[in-house]
């Protein structure tokens, strides 16, 4: 897909946007050509979202264009006359945002929401009677891959899954028949298999209609698979603009190279541990956790009879998509939830029915690193207090001893000692993650549950956290349950893998065996949904067209 010499649909000339302080976008020059899919990659805070908002002429409060201009087919967008300006948003350029559920009106039926956009732009053919608008909305829903659109059109957003809501948002974007789509991290937070389906459908429709797409993402895998050209963004500037294939082979800029290297990191698989005859440190039999839902006779079977064990020093990865019950299983292990059925044996003792007071002394041996880096730390307490709290489980300590331990812990997770005196809100996501890890390790536990330790982190930070855990694992001889959906981190950390789906473990085995010769269809689908950036598996997953 070489660059065509056609005039660009959208062109940015030295676009600079600021919020009073330093510019958030700093002299951006960019051309979006007809029918091209253009990726914009960058880490959190690079200014990617502001870029999309600026093109749409909808900057967040306080933001304004300080220099440069935005051209639509060669004409500055602030020179559009009134009717043209009214058509611009949604009719020429449409936005597909992140977290689709928040983008839909919670008290209106989704079909009507698509209808509002159709009416606003006089589609279809300027007819705005109920009937033709509804028919058109249903047709759009079918087009973006929604089954049974007539019925779904009458649903409210809260009745839809995340992937379904995202499709509705795409339908709303297509409703005004625009020439340009801005997809701002449109599949963030969706499960890998769903993400693949939604992206596939989005790209397919755009190619069919001949749209230009600006695909904003932090995932180089997505760019590699769907885009023709890309720009790497950092600190409000474009550090590199290039053809995707050329970029993958020879990134020109130093930062781009780092980014690519971190995304590519495929450390050698953990070698299988030598089996010894020591008894497992954690042994779980038929663990079951059902939740009663008010108003529904059927309980939710979050965890439905799973069995596994972890040997001392071993890491078992529990892999699955959201809703598979993997986090619930981890919380049952630490007695944060009272499991409905099954036994949990820790170090030879059955802890299933232990009272909290009896179990508390055991907590020093089993700890957890919580999923969301920020919400798992009490915002009102200093890092020092957060790290000192679990130390009370070990033995009485003097203030000085405690201070020394806190300093040691911070050093162990590569944090500066000054961090002790600040509150979690002032830390970056990666630092918060490290504090969470330090807190779990404070009592020198023998078994740790890592709940999604790498989600919501930028590529480079993710690589650093994986390195950190890997180092701690070998230096402390930890046994760990590693809960994740990030297959890349599984490869580098886990000795064995258990694949979980809808509350059950479908298969488990050595990491290499699972990755190289999965037995179950679901495992294969999960592995296929990963969008690797290496060239040998360049064909994207074709799961999308099946749904």
């Amino acid at each position, binding site marked *: 897909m070489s660059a065509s010499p056609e005039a660009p649909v959208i062109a940015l000339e030295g676009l600079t946007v600021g919020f009073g302080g330093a510019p958030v976008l700093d002299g951006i020059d960019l051309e979006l050509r007809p029918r091209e899919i253009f990726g914009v990659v960058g880490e959190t805070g690079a200014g990617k979202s502001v870029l999309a908002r600026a093109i749409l002429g909808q900057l967040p409060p306080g933001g304004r264009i300080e220099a440069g201009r935005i051209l639509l087919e060669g004409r500055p967008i602030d020179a559009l006359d009134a009717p043209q300006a009214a058509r611009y948003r949604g009719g020429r350029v449409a936005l597909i945002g992140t977290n689709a559920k928040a983008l839909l009106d919670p008290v209106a039926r989704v079909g009507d929401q698509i209808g509002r956009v159709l009416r606003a732009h006089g589609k279809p053919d300027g007819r705005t009677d109920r009937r033709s608008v509804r028919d058109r909305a249903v047709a759009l829903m079918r087009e973006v891959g929604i089954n049974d659109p007539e019925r779904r059109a009458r649903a409210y957003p809260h009745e839809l899954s995340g992937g379904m809501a995202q499709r509705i948002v795409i339908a709303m974007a297509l409703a005004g028949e625009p020439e340009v789509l801005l997809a701002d991290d449109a599949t963030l937070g969706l499960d890998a298999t769903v993400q693949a389906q939604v992206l596939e459908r989005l790209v397919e429709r755009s190619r069919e209609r001949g749209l230009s797409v600006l695909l904003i993402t932090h995932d180089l895998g997505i760019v590699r698979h769907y885009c023709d050209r890309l720009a790497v963004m950092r600190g409000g500037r474009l550090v590199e603009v290039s053809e995707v294939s050329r970029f993958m082979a020879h990134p020109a800029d130093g930062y781009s190279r780092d980014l690519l290297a971190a995304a590519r990191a495929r450390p050698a698989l953990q070698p299988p541990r030598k089996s010894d005859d020591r008894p497992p440190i954690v042994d779980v039999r038929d663990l079951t956790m059902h939740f009663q839902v008010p108003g529904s006779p059927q309980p939710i079977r979050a965890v439905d009879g799973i069995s596994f064990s972890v040997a001392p020093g071993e890491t078992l990865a529990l892999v699955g998509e959201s809703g598979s019950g993997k986090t619930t299983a981890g919380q049952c292990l630490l007695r944060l939830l009272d499991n409905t059925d099954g036994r949990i044996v820790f170090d030879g003792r059955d802890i299933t029915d232990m009272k909290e007071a009896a179990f508390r002394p055991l907590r020093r041996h089993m700890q957890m690193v919580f999923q969301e880096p920020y919400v798992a730390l009490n915002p009102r307490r200093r890092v020092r207090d957060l790290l000192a709290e679990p130390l009370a*489980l070990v033995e009485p300590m003097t203030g000085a001893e405690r201070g020394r331990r806190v300093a040691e812990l911070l050093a162990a997770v590569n944090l500066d000692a000054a961090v002790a005196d600040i509150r979690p809100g002032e830390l970056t996501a990666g630092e918060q993650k490290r504090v969470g890890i330090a807190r779990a390790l404070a009592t020198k536990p023998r078994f740790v549950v890592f709940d999604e330790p790498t989600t919501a982190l930028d590529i480079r930070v993710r690589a650093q956290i994986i390195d950190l855990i890997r180092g701690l694992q070998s230096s402390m001889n930890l046994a760990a349950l590693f809960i994740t959906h990030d297959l890349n981190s599984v490869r580098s950390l886990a000795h064995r893998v258990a694949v979980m789906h809808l509350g059950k473990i479908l298969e488990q085995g050595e990491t290499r065996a699972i990755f190289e010769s999965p037995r179950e269809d679901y495992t294969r689908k999960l592995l296929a949904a990963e969008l690797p950036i290496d060239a040998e598996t360049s064909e994207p997953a074709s799961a999308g067209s099946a749904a």
Partner: protein
Amino acid sequence: MARRSSSLLRPGLLIGLALLAVQFVAIVFAPWIAPFSPIEANPLDSLQPPNLVHWLGTDELGMDIFSRIVFATRVNLLIGFAAVALSLAIGVPVGVLVGYYRGLGGALVMRFFDFIQSFPVFVLGMALVAVLGQEIWSVVIVLCMLFVPMFARIVRAEVLSLRERPFIAAARCSGANDFAIMFRHILPNAMTPVIVQVSVSIGMAILLTAGLSFIGAGVRLPSPEWGLMVSSGAQQMILGIWWVALFPGLAIVFSVLSFALLSDEAQRLADTARRKEGAR
């Protein structure tokens, strides 16, 4: 950061603090500020318009309105502070417990609160004061019956959402017991809306006290109390004698306004803090 320092200079806060300072001066120095006794009737000076001797005029009984307004600050603010302090002391722990242990007991307590709150505020107050007698403490108890459920409800709502937050589970993993979780981890995070409400409640207390006294179900004559003073001028107002009711009413407005301004400022600070916490 730059915004926080400028927020200290906001005009709303300055006015609020200034009004509050005036009230505290009135409370402490009332006997030295007031030129006349607040409770001595002087029929010869009845219903004098504002003049150089009686700055704000006199009422039907010839009592000096300015002196009464100054002394009434003690009564009105005492009732407000006492009611809110007592309600905090009861309502906050109840809210924490009811929110943390969601059992039958908690449900019953909340039903009971629903119940009290579903009575018309004023009628409940009148009936209770009629039962308990027209004393300052009766008014305080009436106000507590309104505020305890309010504070408990606010705290409970916060606790209900906080207890599901992962940092609570993390604290439990770190060995915190129920008591530590409730009062060290949850309560400090639940206090922001309570603090905002405290100031509003003092204002509400002043308004309700005045209202109760106005219809004769609160503090009794000759005690100086703003609502009672407005009430004693109500009949004359229609005849064009405006000063008896006007000035004590203004005192109520300024007093309630000062607390409202403070609470607004507290809310603003809480919002910025929350935005900062949520920004990550």
